[in-house]
């Protein structure tokens, strides 16, 4: 995909292969026609991109930040204007939309696409697999009914020539309804409120007369106006909607704040306590901070599960087949570092050790951010490291700060060893996302630059996460679905005899 070698040493065809999907013997390889990176840091993504767009940092733009575990929505305000050619994300995407729309006039007319949508959480799709039985319409076990026995199908109108206008306006769908966590309110009032706060689009075309989102401040304001956490009227509307749905008396929780409408200016002036809303847990009720399941425990709102209660036993047939009807301990997988058919790694004269490989979060960065600054690098060892036990180090005959190769069928890493008695024998720990832009030499095995902490891991989807269409076991974006599980890794480590910087 990047036009670079991933240095996978494993034989792709030794893995289990599904019988119902056509898998070619050789996975297709190639390079993306165009890779664009929008980042204010030169990460390895930037190094492999065809185009790097200069991006404004947090201190050069308007934006919002919050979590659902504290009751504040924080504004970002530019301390300085973006320097040089840097633009805010909003401005960058606006420019891209304009460029695409201009070219689309001649080259990319509007079209309709048919897309598949997984059976969704908080919708009637949750009834897709009654009694937790998988009925495969492909095997004739059921009629193919979109949204019931198969994913939903939808026709999406993609209006490329009008992309820029649609990007810069709040469109009519927002006026119809706002839906979150199964709670639906009308968007009419929010839309009109927002329209009264910003200018309307003037240019003739699809967006004419609609409230403008041209500026990033307007996008921020739209979010604040449409969210019950920052707009008291929305909060009441959401509580009333939940009240209608549950038959419980809930709207009093939101009352008293109807006149409050936080704005970018008001939360910039000083932090403002958000408002309680059923779609966000940052504030559970006036004076009630986040605690898990407060809505269900203190207001008797049914859990969003199959039974509407705390739900421990899972009777979906896939979970039962895997023996996971009830929570249980699963020992780590013991996938071997290499299998027959894999690329042979010729031994060097040094001894290697086999370790269980862990990748916890580091304290010198948030993922790769900050890890490459000279100060954070100075505050530890100034480059990629892997922690190993004193027993394993002595078995390999290496000392603290010596270079090692970490390798298995998934790839090869070059790093310096941090030897310690803090971790037990047989375990190695490589802190997450140190990136490979700083001081990473070549490896003896690949004769190419060493990889990152994830070079020896491999994504292994957990089959039970594929269950869908059964109550709470239904897909919700960023909430429930197959996740990239890549932690049960066993790898080999051996001394790296010679440091080569590969500057050719």
């Amino acid at each position: 995909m990047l036009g670079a070698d991933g240095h996978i040493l494993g034989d792709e065809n030794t893995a289990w292969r599904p019988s119902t999907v056509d898998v070619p013997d050789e996975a297709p390889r190639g390079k993306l026609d165009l890779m664009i990176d929008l980042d204010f840091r030169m990460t390895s993504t930037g190094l492999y991109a065809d185009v790097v767009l200069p991006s404004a940092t947090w201190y050069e733009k308007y934006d919002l930040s919050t979590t659902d575990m504290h009751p504040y929505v924080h504004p970002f305000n530019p301390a300085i204007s973006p320097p040089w050619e840097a633009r805010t994300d909003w401005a960058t995407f606006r420019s891209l939309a304009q460029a695409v729309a201009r070219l689309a006039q001649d080259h990319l007319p509007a079209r309709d696409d048919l897309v598949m949508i997984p059976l969704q959480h908080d919708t009637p799709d949750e009834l897709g697999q009654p009694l937790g039985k998988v009925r495969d319409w492909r095997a004739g076990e059921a009629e193919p009914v979109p949204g019931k026995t198969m994913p939903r199908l939808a026709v999406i109108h993609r209006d490329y020539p009008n992309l820029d206008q649609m990007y810069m306006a709040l469109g009519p769908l927002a006026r119809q309804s706002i839906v979150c966590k199964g709670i639906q309110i009308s968007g009419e009032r929010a839309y009109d409120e927002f329209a009264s706060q910003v200018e309307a689009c003037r240019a003739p075309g699809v967006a004419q007369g609609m409230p403008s989102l041209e500026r990033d401040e307007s996008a921020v304001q739209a979010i604040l106006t449409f969210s019950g956490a920052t707009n008291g009227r929305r909060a009441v509307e959401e509580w009333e909607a939940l009240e209608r749905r549950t038959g419980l008396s809930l709207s009093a929780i939101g009352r008293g704040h109807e006149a409050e409408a936080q704005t970018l200016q008001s939360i910039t002036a000083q932090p403002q306590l958000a408002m309680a809303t059923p779609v966000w847990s940052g504030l559970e009720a006036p004076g009630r901070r986040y605690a898990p399941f407060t809505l269900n425990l203190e207001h008797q709102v049914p859990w969003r599960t199959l039974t509407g209660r705390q739900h421990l036993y899972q009777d979906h047939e896939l979970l039962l087949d895997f023996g996971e009807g009830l929570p249980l301990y699963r020992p780590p997988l013991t996938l071997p570092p290499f299998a027959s058919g894999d690329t042979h790694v010729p031994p060097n004269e040094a001894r290697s050790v086999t370790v269980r490989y862990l990748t916890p979060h580091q304290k010198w960065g948030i993922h790769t951010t900050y890890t490459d600054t000279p100060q954070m690098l100075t505050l530890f060892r100034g480059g990629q490291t892997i922690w190993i036990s004193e027993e394993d180090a002595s078995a390999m005959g290496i000392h603290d700060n010596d270079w090692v190769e970490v390798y298995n069928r998934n790839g090869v890493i070059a790093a310096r060893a941090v030897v310690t008695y803090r971790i037990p024998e047989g375990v190695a720990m490589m802190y997450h996302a140190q990136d490979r832009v700083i001081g990473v030499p070549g490896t003896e095995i690949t004769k190419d630059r060493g990889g990152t902490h994830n070079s020896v891991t491999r994504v292994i989807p957990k089959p039970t996460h594929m269950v869908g269409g059964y109550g709470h076991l239904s897909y919700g974006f960023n909430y429930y679905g197959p996740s990239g599980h890549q932690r049960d890794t066993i790898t080999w480590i051996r001394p790296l005899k010679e440091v080569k910087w590969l500057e050719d």
Partner: protein
Amino acid sequence: MKIKAQVAMVMNLDKCIGCHTCSVTCKNVWTNRPGAEYMWWNNVETRPGPGYPQEWEDQNHYNGGWELRDGKLHLKAGGPAVKLATIFANPNMPTIDDYYEPWTYDYETLINSPRREHQPVARPRSAMTGDWIDSPTWGPNWDDDLAGGRAIAPRDPNVRDLQEHIAFEYERTFMMYLPRICEHCLNPSCVASCPVGAIYKRDDDGIVLVDQETCRGWRFCISGCPYKKMYFNWNTHKAEKCTFCYPRIEAGLPTVCSETCVGRIRYLGVVLYDADRVLEAASVANPQDLYQAQLEVFLNPHDPRVALAAKEEGINDAWIEAARNSPIYKLALDWRVALPLHPEYRTLPMVWYVPSLSPIMNHLAHEEQMSGQAYLAAVDQMRIPMEYLASLLTAGDVSLIRNVLVRLVAMRMHMRQRAVGDVDDTTLLRESGMTARDLEDMARLLGVAKYDERFVIPTARCEDIPDPEYLQGACGLEGIAPPEGIWPQSRINREREREIDRSRSDG
């Protein structure tokens, strides 16, 4: 009695998470410039470990601080005669390798690299020589979280005499963080070491500073400071040190390290002390008596005689009031849970530490049925050996450490008893020697105290500024502002003179 006031600091090690935010913000503000690359006025050490600079506590090697000879206080490194003899080759001077050789990266190559066979990578290079280095070999936090293990941790000077209490093995691992700044001592050996008198302890707030105009770069302060918190700038050839962020302190604001501390472990407040008793306190025979001696140098601001005497020394009401509300006074004197770092150096340091509790070594059977009595026993089974904490904070007196740990455990158990009601805290209350009310106040200050409770800092005393109107008018432009003043008096005077001139010429 000669009363002085000092803004002092306490760090609660129980809450330090070793994030180094204090170090980074300090560096960004103060030492991010040529000549200061290797300086970390604030650093955080993983203990056990040799620290920064390496093994700085080994005074047999560095000869920092004071010692008692024939009952009299002397600089351990020797007086003026020794200094003169070694002025061009000070044997006690740390070398750059004791700190580390600062390095940077060839970041440009990530942007400018031409198309090549292999992905470009920013290689490290020495910030001193510019030479490429394959891998740095030491840094200011090289042994973070026991990195380096048995090859490094046992070089901690504190563990050399504690072998029977310390094991460097997985099952018996212990670890703590020690954030450090200049101690702004009452009896600073850096000040005494300087051959040209360039270092001074400020009268108003006790902050120790280097006069950059007077400093001649002889560097005896660097070896003379037992905490190794004096640094030599190779660019200016002058000594530099933690300034306690005096421009902020003067404005009533906490130091940058305190302000930005994520764990909120730092406290700042005023302590009144009797300058006339400093020498006597620093000269007590037994190093284990130095803690008590220093406590006796401090004065009780609630005592009306002290307040009156302080006023007579020119300490204003706001400072006396601040001394009464000082979180430092509470932690160090009222509750006695804060202790000085290495009192045996006899400098009477003014940055004190609350020692850290740690998990207990052995598995607790039937924890749910544990009595207050059992929790008392747990104090003796904590992972961090009390002997280790005593080596850091009490010149080896384990009983003082135990007293503090009992108080901290009593506080937790008492608060648990109040909130949950499932432990009997009577034994602990009795053992701690503190009242329930004190423990509750301490729990508040150590647990949830807000900004203005943690930092009680009066603004600088400005009653004696000779010409405030002029300073206001000049507003930092004293160099070009007319010395006779600008506004309003000078202009009024000038206009009046002109009027008189006119009337004269008219006449």
